[in-house]
C-alpha cells in the first residue's frame, strides 16, 4: 500500500514588481497587499482537446505540459489574463470586449486598422479624416468605442445578458506621456487613478458614476447587429477619446525618442512623425481585456 501524497499546499516564492518595489521604497504605506488574482497567461486553451480519442483524461494533456515562464518584474506585462470567479458552473458562454468600428463613421478606424491621434491643430487640419482623433480639439474627430456582451449568433441579442456577466467597471491603461482619456461629449479629461513607475496611467470608469464613458447598450434588437460589435446579448459600452499630451503637442522630443516618420494617414503625400502605442481596456469585473492600437501623429 503506497503512501498518500500529503504535500498539501503549494509553496511559491513571489517577486516584487517594479511598482511594488517603488511603493515599498516610498514608505508611505502604499505597499499593502490586500487581494490576489490568479492568471493563466501562458495557457492556450485551443490545446484543450475535447475530442481526444483516448478519453477525458487526455483532454488537457497538452495544456498541462505547457512550460511556464519565470516571473518578471514589469507589473504591466504580467497577469494579462486572469481567472474569473463565477459561482455558477453551467455557463456555456462568457462575454467579451470588442472594438466597435461600425456604430457610426466617427468610430471607424483609419488606414492599417489604427486609430490616429493628431496631436496639434496643424496636424488635425492636414490629416483629419476617418479614424483620426483630434488630440487638441477634443472631442472632435474619431472616437473609440468598446462593446461588451456575448459575441455569438447562437443567442439572440434580444435576450438580456445575465446580470452577473454585465461589466460595470472598465480600466483603461495608457502611456501618460502621450495622452489622456477624455469623454466623447464634453472632452473632459478623466481622473487618473494612478500612474505607475513606467508612466502607465490607469483610469477606472464605472457604470453609473461615469455616464459620459460607460453606459448600457440599449440597441438589443436583431436589426441593430450592424451597429453593435457583439452579435448576442449585450451588456455595457465604453466610449472615450484621447487628448494628446502637452509634450506631444508642443514638442517633437518624444517623437524623436520613441517614434519615426511615415506617410500621413489621410494625406499620403505628406509625411508625419509618429509614435505607436497601445491602449489597454480591461473589464474590472469579468477580467476580459483588449488592446487598441493607437498612432500619435504630428506634421513633419
Amino acid at each position: 500500500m503506497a503512501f498518500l501524497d500529503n504535500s498539501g499546499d503549494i509553496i511559491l516564492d513571489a517577486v516584487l514588481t517594479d511598482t511594488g518595489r517603488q511603493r515599498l521604497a516610498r514608505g508611505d504605506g502604499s505597499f499593502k497587499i490586500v487581494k490576489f488574482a490568479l492568471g493563466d497567461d501562458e495557457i492556450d486553451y485551443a490545446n484543450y482537446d475535447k475530442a481526444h480519442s483516448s478519453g477525458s483524461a487526455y483532454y488537457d494533456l497538452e495544456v498541462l505540459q505547457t512550460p511556464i515562464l519565470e516571473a518578471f518584474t514589469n507589473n504591466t506585462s504580467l497577469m494579462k489574463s486572469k481567472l474569473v470567479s463565477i459561482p455558477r458552473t453551467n455557463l456555456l458562454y462568457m462575454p467579451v470586449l470588442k472594438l466597435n468600428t461600425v456604430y457610426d463613421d466617427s468610430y471607424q478606424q483609419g488606414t492599417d486598422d489604427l486609430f490616429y491621434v493628431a496631436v496639434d491643430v496643424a496636424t488635425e487640419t492636414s490629416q483629419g479624416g476617418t479614424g483620426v482623433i483630434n488630440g487638441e480639439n477634443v472631442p472632435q474627430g474619431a472616437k473609440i468605442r468598446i462593446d461588451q456582451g456575448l459575441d455569438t449568433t447562437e443567442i439572440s441579442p434580444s435576450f438580456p445578458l445575465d446580470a452577473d456577466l454585465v461589466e460595470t467597471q472598465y480600466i483603461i491603461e495608457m502611456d501618460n506621456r502621450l495622452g489622456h482619456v477624455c469623454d466623447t461629449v464634453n472632452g473632459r479629461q478623466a481622473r487618473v487613478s494612478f500612474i505607475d513607475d513606467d508612466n502607465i496611467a490607469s483610469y477606472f470608469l464605472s457604470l453609473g458614476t461615469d455616464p459620459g464613458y460607460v453606459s448600457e447598450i440599449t440597441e438589443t434588437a436583431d436589426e441593430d447587429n450592424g451597429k453593435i460589435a457583439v452579435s448576442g446579448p449585450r451588456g455595457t459600452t465604453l466610449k472615450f477619446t484621447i487628448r494628446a499630451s502637452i509634450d506631444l503637442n508642443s514638442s517633437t522630443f518624444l517623437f524623436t525618442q520613441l517614434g519615426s516618420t511615415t506617410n500621413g494617414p489621410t494625406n499620403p503625400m505628406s509625411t508625419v512623425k509618429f509614435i505607436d502605442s497601445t491602449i489597454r481596456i480591461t473589464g474590472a469585473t469579468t477580467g476580459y481585456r483588449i488592446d487598441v492600437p493607437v498612432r500619435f501623429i504630428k506634421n513633419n
Partner: protein
Amino acid sequence: MATTFKTLLNSDSTTTRTLLHEAIPITGTIVSGTYDESAAASSNIKNYSHGMFQSVYDYPYLSSSANQIFDLTVGYSNNSAHSNSANSQNAKKINIYNQMAQVLAGYDQDGNIREFDQDGNFAAGGTKLRECVFINFARLLTKDEIKKESFELKVMTGSTPATRTSAEVLTISDYGAINNYRVNSPAGEYGVLYTASAAVEGTGVGLIYYQAGIVVLTGSVYDGEFGANGAAYDTGSFDAVLTGSEISASADGFRNTLFNTQFNNTTELNSKIYFCRANHSDFNYSSNPTYLSSSKLVVKETSTDSPVSYVTTIGLYSADNELLAVAKLSEPIKKTPDTEVTFRVRLDY
C-alpha cells in the same frame, strides 16, 4: 457577480523568520600562494598607503571579478609590554587596537576604552589580550552573522616555516559557543576561541564577534617564526615582527601561517506568507482570449459540463488593483469546481 480578485483576510497571511546558513571555507592557499603577490596586476593582496590594514581578495584585486574576503591588521594596547615609541608604526598599532577595542569591547564606567578580555569577564579582571591580530571578514561572507560554534581557524605555528609539518597545525575554534557565549559587547554577541575542544575557562586564545564578523586573536598563539620561508617576508617571531615591522608585515606573516579557516554564515530571512485560497467556486473560468470561441467556452461541450481553468501565475495586488508582487507555478494547476487549492505565496524581505 463575476470577479477576478479575491480579498485576503487577516487570517490569510502570516509572518515567518528563517535562518539560512552557508558554509564558507577559505583555504590557506587562496590567501597566500595561489596568486603572485609581487605585482599588483596579479596580486590578491591589497596594501594601502596609510598602512593600517591589508585586504585579501579571492582573485587579483584589480579584476572586477574579485571579491574582498577579509581585512587583516594587528595592534597592541598602550599598556602592552611591547608598546614602545621606537617600534615601527607604534602609534598606528595602538590606534588600531583602541579602535577595535572601543567598537568591540566598549568603555568602562569612567569612559575608558576596555581592553579585550580573555574570557569576556571584565568585572573579574583576568587576563587581557593586549597584542592581537584582527581578522575582519567581509559582510559578503558573514552576511548577517557568523553561526556560533561553526568557526574554525587552523594556523601553523612552531619551528620555522621551512621545517613545519602538518602536525604543527594548531586548530582554534569557538568550541561550545552555541550554549556559551557573551552578550556584554556593544558589537553584539561574541564567543571565546580555544585551542582545545573543551572550552576550559582561562585558556582562551581569542574572541569572535558573531554579528560584527571580526576575529580577535592573541599573538601568543604563535610560537617559532611568524611568516613564510621567503625573502619577501619578515621571518622573526611574532613579537619581533609585531614590534619591528609595519602592520603589513604582520598581516603577511598571518597569511603565511594560515592553513585554512571556515565558518557558517547566517542570513536572517523575514517572510510574509499569503495563503491564497481558491475555493471550489473560485477561479473556475478564465478571461484568456483563447478560452472562448465566439464567446463559447472551448473547454465545455454543453452547459452541464464542468468548467475548468489552469493556474500559472498568482498576482498580489494593492487596494487600487496595482500588481505589487507575482509568483509563478512550475507547471499549470488544474482548477475545477470540485477542487480547492491553497497557494502559499512567500514574500521575502
